């Protein structure tokens, strides 16, 4: 499903301008990262995409729906949103029931809800914890429950606010696989993140925000080629990119596999020369 924001402006009470003429389109199947320093307007913008905030001017389209004409609960049929802090949503006694909350609200039948929950639990590696009380899990476990809660809704668009915060390497890899699965299902994913190492390996497109403005919207590879832009934006250059840049005869590698391939290509070239 396509999401289209057209000339969005938003100012918080006290004349704090947070979004200044933002226009962007997210296409079906795209994996997009929304990045920028704290206070750049990322979360405010993302909250416009599921109707939690309404633009003071401009329009946000989710498919053929204008967000201004639908409640967030209605828009939840199309856009799932995972909040940064899982503790601000968990309230049921079992992980299974917590994950079922969204699909139940969307009115799916009991058997559909069951399937959706089982799939989401499996994707997030929570099948064995299905009967646990979410509060008995550690923070990253609760985070995975909140991610599973959104996945279970099977919406065409998913927004993740700092999804990898507090996840360990294994859990990040698992979430990376989830994103690939969503991509195969042609779902649109928007990730708000400061985790550049995760972003570089997992998204196709990067939108950079600065002081309420969208200052860059480009492919991941193109974005990370611009060393100056990254440094000026207060972002940390991912280690893989730094390594590629240091070995400047290598083409920019966005993941370890690409790096290894590129290194082998160079070695072969040198040997043949």
């Amino acid at each position, binding site marked *: 499903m396509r999401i289209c924001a057209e000339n969005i402006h938003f100012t918080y009470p006290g004349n704090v301008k947070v979004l200044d003429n933002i226009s962007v389109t997210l296409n079906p199947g795209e994996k997009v990262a929304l990045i920028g320093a704290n206070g750049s307007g990322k979360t405010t913008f993302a909250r416009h995409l*599921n109707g939690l905030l309404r633009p003071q001017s401009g329009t946000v389209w989710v498919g053929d729906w204008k967000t201004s004409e639908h409640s*967030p609960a209605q828009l*939840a049929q199309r856009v799932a949103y995972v909040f940064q802090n899982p*503790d*601000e*949503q*968990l*309230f049921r006694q079992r992980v299974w029931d917590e994950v079922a909350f969204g699909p139940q609200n969307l009115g799916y039948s009991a058997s559909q809800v069951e399937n959706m929950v089982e799939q989401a639990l499996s994707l997030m590696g929570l099948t064995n914890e299905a009967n646990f009380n979410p509060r008995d899990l550690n923070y990253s476990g609760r985070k995975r429950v909140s991610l599973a809660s959104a996945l279970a809704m099977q919406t065409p668009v998913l927004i993740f606010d700092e999804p990898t915060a507090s996840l360990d390497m294994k859990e990040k890899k698992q979430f990376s696989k989830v994103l690939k699965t969503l991509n195969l299902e042609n779902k649109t994913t928007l990730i708000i993140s400061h985790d550049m190492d995760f972003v570089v390996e997992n998204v196709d497109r990067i939108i950079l925000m600065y002081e309420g403005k969208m200052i860059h919207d480009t492919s991941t590879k193109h974005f990370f080629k611009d060393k100056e832009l990254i440094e000026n934006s207060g972002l940390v250059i991912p280690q893989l990119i730094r390594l590629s840049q240091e070995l400047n005869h290598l083409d920019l590698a966005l993941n370890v596999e690409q790096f290894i391939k590129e290194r082998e290509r160079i070695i072969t070239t040198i040997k043949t020369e």
Partner: protein
Amino acid sequence: MTLGLYTAGDSWLHRLFPITKLIFSLSAIAIIFGGPNKWLSAILPGVISILILWSAGIAWRALKLIVQLLTPIAVILFIVHGFFGPANHQILMRLGPFVLGQEGLMYASLIVVRLVSTLASSLLLVTSTHPGSLIQALEQTGLSRKLVYLLGSPLLLLPQMARRIQTIRSAQQSRGLETQGNLLQRIKALFPLVAPLVFSALVDVEERSLALEVRGFSAPTPKTNLTEIPDTTKQQVLRWGMIVIAVCFLVFEFWRKRNGYD
């Protein structure tokens, strides 16, 4: 700037030592509910409070809060006591099978006036006193730090709780929870909204107490105050005067009732 109900300002009321305002509020409440001549005791402290708020330039905000908070309660009280008051004898009006009684209406009016006065005298304290100042003033009076923290932390946490309620509402709406609509829908939405608030508040309490302890909150050494809120002898006299007046009213009322003058 507002922090919870506090409205920043530099009026004479804002500058008063917080304990003076606290004693005023407590004395006023004691007189409202326990003073002689129930109507006068109910009305007078409220009127004085509103006049004081007026002179400090924050009466409108206080009145708005009073109207917002008490209108639904007042409506319910008038309906319940007006139509179903057990003391109803004098009939004012008939509405089908229901009878509106004068005694019930008068009783409801008294409760509403008492509530308005109580709220006005409480708002006098909370709208003009920064929670941090109140906590510090309590500490200056020599109360134990733990007790002061226990009394004051809810005031400081109110804005944080308000922000969290908003976030929880957003998170649950994003999962398809309808928080608007008819009464049934709102009741259904209550548990998913309240439970995370309570759970996270409990976790917060534990984390906050640990954070305080590891930074020496309970250390037996004397604590250093970097600033001191000024108090004056005049205010000390005023405080004792208010306490004496409130106690006299309560004792007089007790004596009257005991001797059958009511």
